[in-house]
């Protein structure tokens, strides 16, 4: 994993990410519904583990490698002052662990040049987006099972409040 420092490259990747995420302040980690629909994506929220647990890494990395991906970019979806906001990652367990170490507390979106998949990480959950076969491989379980697991995380935290934002994220992305 290495920080991207060339301004033009950073701008390029920020623009790529801006096209698939909301522009509203504090909500830049959410995917745009028109992007999801246009690209026939499914989006599934997964409980965050700063950002990926070892189990996540052991599932995501081979899924992406088997689909032919060798590297990706991580772009911040929040302002981070002087901290690097753009990184190049190899699709390897080591780079995903390093991403956790350096960026695990911050909002970042992982994707690749063609944006055929993306994972948008925030402090409570990660949004996995892509077409169904790849997404299922990245999740390691059927999509409905992943949604069920996220609801099992979100519902106790909501304590019956239908306006709870984690619960609302689960309900919103269940439409896609």
């Amino acid at each position, binding site marked *: 994993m290495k920080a991207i420092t060339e301004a033009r490259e950073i701008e390029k990747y920020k623009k790529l990410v801006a096209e698939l995420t909301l522009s509203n302040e*504090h909500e830049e980690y959410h995917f745009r519904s028109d992007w999801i629909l246009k690209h026939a994506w499914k989006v599934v929220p997964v409980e965050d583990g*700063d950002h990926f*647990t070892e189990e996540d890494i052991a599932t995501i990395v081979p899924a992406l490698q088997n689909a032919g991906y060798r590297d990706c970019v991580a772009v911040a979806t929040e302002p981070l*002052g002087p901290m690097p906001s753009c990184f190049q990652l190899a699709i390897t367990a080591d780079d995903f662990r*390093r991403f956790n170490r350096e960026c695990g*507390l911050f909002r970042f979106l992982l994707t690749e040049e063609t944006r055929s998949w993306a994972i948008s990480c*925030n402090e*409570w959950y990660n949004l996995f987006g892509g077409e169904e076969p790849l997404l299922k491989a990245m999740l390691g379980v059927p999509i409905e099972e992943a949604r069920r697991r996220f609801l099992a995380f979100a519902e106790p935290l909501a304590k019956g409040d239908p306006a*709870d934002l*984690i619960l609302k994220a689960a309900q919103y992305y269940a439409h896609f």
Partner: protein
Amino acid sequence: MQAGKATVQDILQGAVDEGGSRAQIFSKPGGFAQATKDFEALEAQSQNLGRVQVKDLPGGQGRAVLRNLSSDGRPTLKIQPAGGGYKSVAIRYNP
């Protein structure tokens, strides 16, 4: 709790354990005022990074990040273990 000398365990005093499988989730009352008080009580210099404040804690306690508005709609103080190992401590501050 002495300002600037508290440990993560100190600020967890009185917090309610909310479970969580990938982070240890706690809640406390007091909103952003209490979150800020707890963050400032942690030993280390803070750094502003955009909308968040960050402290690298001494003694292998890891890194703390304070958010006024997290994706659950509340102020949140999250502490990642040193070296990035999970699982982190996340405190949600209710109004």
